[in-house]
Structures are given as structure tokens and as C-alpha cells.
């Protein structure tokens, strides 16, 4: 008897756990009608977004924000116009390569992933992928699935673990955001977002051949940083699998297809953000991505003094092999490009200080204080200068 009960319970649980959670997409519905649990997810999403949007983590660049939202509008399916669903994109000041969507159409993109893109077509790939999660109601499907299985526990644990060097995003997100940003979706839902997203960006006139490039950047980051966490598009094997899937889709459905890339306009608009993002990478000790971004800035603007200075900072802080010499060379380039920029003078001052060239050091540090009389580290500089005088 007891065996029968156990078997029945196991079967029941199995059926429940595997119960299909497929929902019709918003486009296929006659007007958006939220289910009760979906409504709760939307309410929860709004609460989490309020907190997120008033935090200092939102990247404030009105021109970039307007541009990203314009691209999102181009991708907005016409059959959804006039419905209650709309899309709004925000940027989060975070160098990690991530993006996520709330079920109510609010999307968040890290500056890190924007900084790795090369053109508008790659941005469209990301946005259309995230928008598919929204239009196909993946959040509620995901929530039901994880609630039904032990994956729920894993999701909660993933959302709760400290992210260490991998950024502070998990700290400020609630359950819905963490599920989208950290845990991600099942393989099937991600595949659906890939297929539909690619169709959407191609239909909007973008070059579909650019789509796998975005995932190649992600894969490179995962390899470089030895990322083990299930972040955004997932682990290394899953990323490789998705690049392969994209290439297969391109061969099967978009062979010979092309479209807009809008590289120049994209580069021009993201350019001011690149430096900010490189500084964030540097703060986290992500030297390779910081160096790559700064080198990219200098390819477009060889006279960018700030980029030279931060490249010098990358070398100084990384402190490998011939980094000290490289750092000094970059600081000198920065001074040549813009003698009025204070920071390279301070940096050169400390290069000379450590080398025992005290007169040269004092001269550079004095220049720094003259150019930046309210420098936040003024007290340190004065202390070093007094020590040099007494030595």
C-alpha cells in the first residue's frame, strides 16, 4: 500500500514538475490579459525597478539612453502597438557583460556589454533577444518552472550568493531581477529568444550576420575572466553551443542576408561611456577588458589624453614584467596630448618619487596641485612633498 502511495506521489510530483508551462506570446493574444501570478510578478517587478532606478548604479547619459531606446523602438513589434506593453531601456554602470529584462518590458543593460559591442546591429541583437523574453512571457514560465522543481532552491541560492569580483548587481536586485539577470532562463527559452530575437532584428533591417559576434564577445570575456558563475548567457559550453546555433540559423534561414550595421553612429554615441566603463573595469582589477577598451578609444582618437592616462594606470596597477616602463610612457603621452590634464602629472610625480628622482617628482606633483587645487588627494601630495623636502 505504502509503495503504491509513494509511487503515486512520485508520479504526481513528476508530472507536476514537468508540467508544461508554455504560454501564448503577447502578440498571439487578443489584448494583454495578465494571469494572477503574472500580475504579481509585474507588481514585484515595479517595486524592484523603483529601487534600482533611484540607486546610484543607473548610468546617466541622456544621449546614449535616448539612442538605445530609439533602437528598442525600431525593434518593437508593430502588432503590439497600442497594447499595454511598452519597452523602456535603462543602463547600469557595471563593467560586467550582462543584460536582463523584467516581465513588464523594462530592460537593463550593463555598460560593460555595451562597451564590448561594435555596432548598432549587435545592440539590436541583444535588445531583440531580451524583448522576446518579455513578449513570450518567459519570466512567468520560468517562475512557474523553478517553483515546481528543485531548481527553485538553486535559483534562490544563486540569487543570494555574494558575487565578489563579479559585481554588485546581485546585491540590489530582488527575486524577479535576480532570476532574469543572474540565473537566466532554461535552454529552451533562451533558444526561443535567440530564434525570435534574430528574426526581429533582421525584420527591422539589421544585418543578422552580426548576431553571433555579440556572443563571441561574451565567450571571450568568460574565457579571459575564468567566469564560473551562471551569468547572463550562461557558462562557456552553453555560449559555444549558442554561437554554433546562431551560425546554423544564419546558414539555414539568412544565407546571404545583410542589413544595417550603423557602426559609425554607434561608435560615436558610445564613445564617452567607454572611458567610464574602462575605469570600472580597472577598479575591479579586470585589466584585460580595461586595456582593450582604452586601446580601442585610442585607435579612434590617438590624442585622447585620458585614455593614455588610464592605460598607464592599467599598467601600473597590473605591475607585470615591463608594465612600469609602459605606464610611464603612457603618462608622458597623456601629458603631451593635454598638458592641462592634472592626473598624468601626479602619476609621473609618483613614478619619479619611487625612482628617487625627488626634484622631478616634486615638480610634477606641484604641477598637479596647481592644475587641480581642490584635488581630493591633496593632503597625501602635500605630505609626500614635505617628506621630500626633509629628505
Amino acid at each position, binding site marked *: 500500500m505504502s509503495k503504491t502511495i509513494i509511487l503515486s506521489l512520485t508520479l504526481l510530483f513528476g508530472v507536476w514538475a514537468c508540467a508544461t508551462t508554455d504560454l501564448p506570446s503577447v502578440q498571439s493574444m487578443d489584448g494583454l490579459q495578465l494571469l494572477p501570478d503574472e500580475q504579481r510578478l509585474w507588481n514585484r517587478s515595479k517595486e524592484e525597478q523603483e529601487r534600482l532606478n533611484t*540607486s*546610484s*548604479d543607473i548610468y546617466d547619459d541622456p544621449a546614449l539612453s535616448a539612442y538605445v531606446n530609439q533602437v528598442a523602438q525600431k525593434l518593437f513589434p508593430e502588432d503590439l502597438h497600442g497594447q499595454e506593453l511598452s519597452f523602456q531601456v535603462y543602463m547600469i554602470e557595471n563593467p560586467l557583460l550582462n543584460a536582463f529584462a523584467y516581465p513588464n518590458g523594462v530592460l537593463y543593460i550593463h555598460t560593460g556589454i555595451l562597451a564590448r559591442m561594435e555596432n548598432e546591429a549587435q545592440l539590436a541583437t541583444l535588445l531583440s533577444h531580451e524583448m522576446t523574453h518579455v513578449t513570450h512571457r518567459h519570466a512567468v514560465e520560468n517562475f512557474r518552472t523553478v517553483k515546481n522543481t528543485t531548481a527553485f532552491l538553486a535559483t534562490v541560492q544563486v540569487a543570494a550568493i*555574494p*558575487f*565578489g*569580483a*563579479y*559585481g*554588485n*548587481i*546581485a*546585491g*540590489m536586485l530582488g527575486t524577479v531581477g535576480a532570476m532574469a539577470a543572474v540565473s537566466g532562463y532554461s535552454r529552451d527559452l533562451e533558444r526561443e529568444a535567440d530564434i525570435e530575437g534574430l528574426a526581429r532584428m533582421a525584420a527591422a533591417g539589421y544585418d543578422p550576420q552580426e548576431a553571433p559576434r555579440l556572443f563571441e564577445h561574451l565567450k571571450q570575456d568568460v574565457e579571459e575572466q575564468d567566469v564560473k558563475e551562471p551569468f547572463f548567457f550562461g557558462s562557456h559550453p552553453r555560449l559555444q553551443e549558442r554561437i554554433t546555433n546562431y551560425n546554423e540559423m544564419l546558414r539555414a534561414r539568412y544565407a546571404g542576408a545583410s542589413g544595417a550595421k550603423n557602426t559609425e553612429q554607434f561608435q560615436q554615441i558610445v564613445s564617452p561611456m567607454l572611458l567610464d566603463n574602462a575605469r570600472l573595469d580597472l*577598479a*575591479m*582589477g*579586470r585589466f584585460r577588458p580595461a586595456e582593450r577598451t582604452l586601446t580601442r578609444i585610442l585607435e579612434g582618437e590617438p590624442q585622447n589624453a585620458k585614455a593614455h592616462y588610464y592605460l598607464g594606470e592599467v599598467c601600473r*596597477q597590473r*605591475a607585470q614584467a615591463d608594465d612600469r616602463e609602459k605606464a610611464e610612457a603612457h603618462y608622458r603621452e597623456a601629458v603631451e596630448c593635454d598638458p592641462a590634464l592634472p592626473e598624468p602629472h601626479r602619476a609621473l610625480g*609618483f613614478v619619479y*618619487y*619611487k625612482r628617487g628622482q625627488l626634484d622631478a617628482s616634486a615638480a610634477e606633483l606641484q604641477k598637479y596641485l596647481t592644475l587641480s587645487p581642490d584635488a*581630493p*588627494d591633496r*593632503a*597625501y601630495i602635500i*605630505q*609626500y612633498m614635505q617628506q621630500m623636502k626633509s629628505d
Partner: protein
Amino acid sequence: MRNTAIILTLCIAGLWGCATWSGVGGPYTENSKNFRVDLPSGWHKYNRVRDALMITKDGLPLQQIKIVQISVDKELAHTKKKLSEKMLPHEAAELVVDNFRSNPNLLNQEILENSPAQVSNQNGFKIVCTYETKGGLPKKAAIYGLLDGNWYYEMIYEAPQRWYFHHDLPAFENVAQSFQLIKSAGQ
């Protein structure tokens, strides 16, 4: 009867040794971490932490002073960068600030002060910062740091911004002023 008494004594001694809290006040020496310090009277030491000296008066969430000794070879908790014995005080402070800004458990971090400070009669630094916990509680912290050879010493005081921080700040400043290395790398 005699055996029972011995067992009872051992149990009490064992429990005493495992006590979560013990009262502190006055001179305190931590030989294994190479420092001595004067601790405020009426505070309590939290004994469940092995790698730091941690004290509080009213409970850890309300105010805490933590003193740690960290090897410079060790990666900091939230940034991949490492300290180095060749760093100048402001460079070490810069790294501590980067680590603070990269802490995933804190929101709206802000640096109010980053200045040179004497720690154990050596050139160190002081950082004052504010942040919010995940639960939305605004807190404030003061940090003194010192690099000495291959070791980094840090004294951290943190408390809710409202009332507690300023109330117990003088006690922390006294602790910081009294901090002395037992043996400096330069000696």
C-alpha cells in the same frame, strides 16, 4: 564522585572557552596578529570570528570595531587587485576604496574622506565612507589602514549613520590612536 567533579569542571571550562562573547576593556595584545591596542571599557569581543578582532558595545549591527591583519599576497574580497609592500599609502587607500566600491552587498557607496593618517607611528591612511545595506539601512564607516612589509593592517568602525556612528566614534578614534605593531617590518 571525584570523576563527576572533574568532568563537570572540564565541561564548564570547555563552555567558558567556547563563549560567544567576552568582556573587554583596557590593553589588549594579539600576538598572532602582531598588534596591541587599548579597547574601550564596557565593550564585548565576539569570539566566533577567528581571523579578526571584533568588538561591539550594543550588538554587531549597531556598532562594531574590527581589526584585521591581511597578507598582501591575498586578493581582496571584491576586486581582483592585490596590495603590494611597495605601495605608497595613497595607493593602498585607492585599492581599499576600489574594493569597497565593488562590494556586492552594499549600495550607494560614497567616499567622504580619504586622507593620510599616522597608524602605529607610520604613514597610513584614513577613509570615511557611507553606504546602504541591502535592507536599505544607511551606514557609515571609518577605516584606518597601514601597510607594513608583507602585511596590511586595517581597523574598521561601522555603525548606522543615524545616532550610533557619531556616538561611538570617539571610542574608535581612541582605539586607532592606541594601535601599535608589536614588531614592525622595518625594525
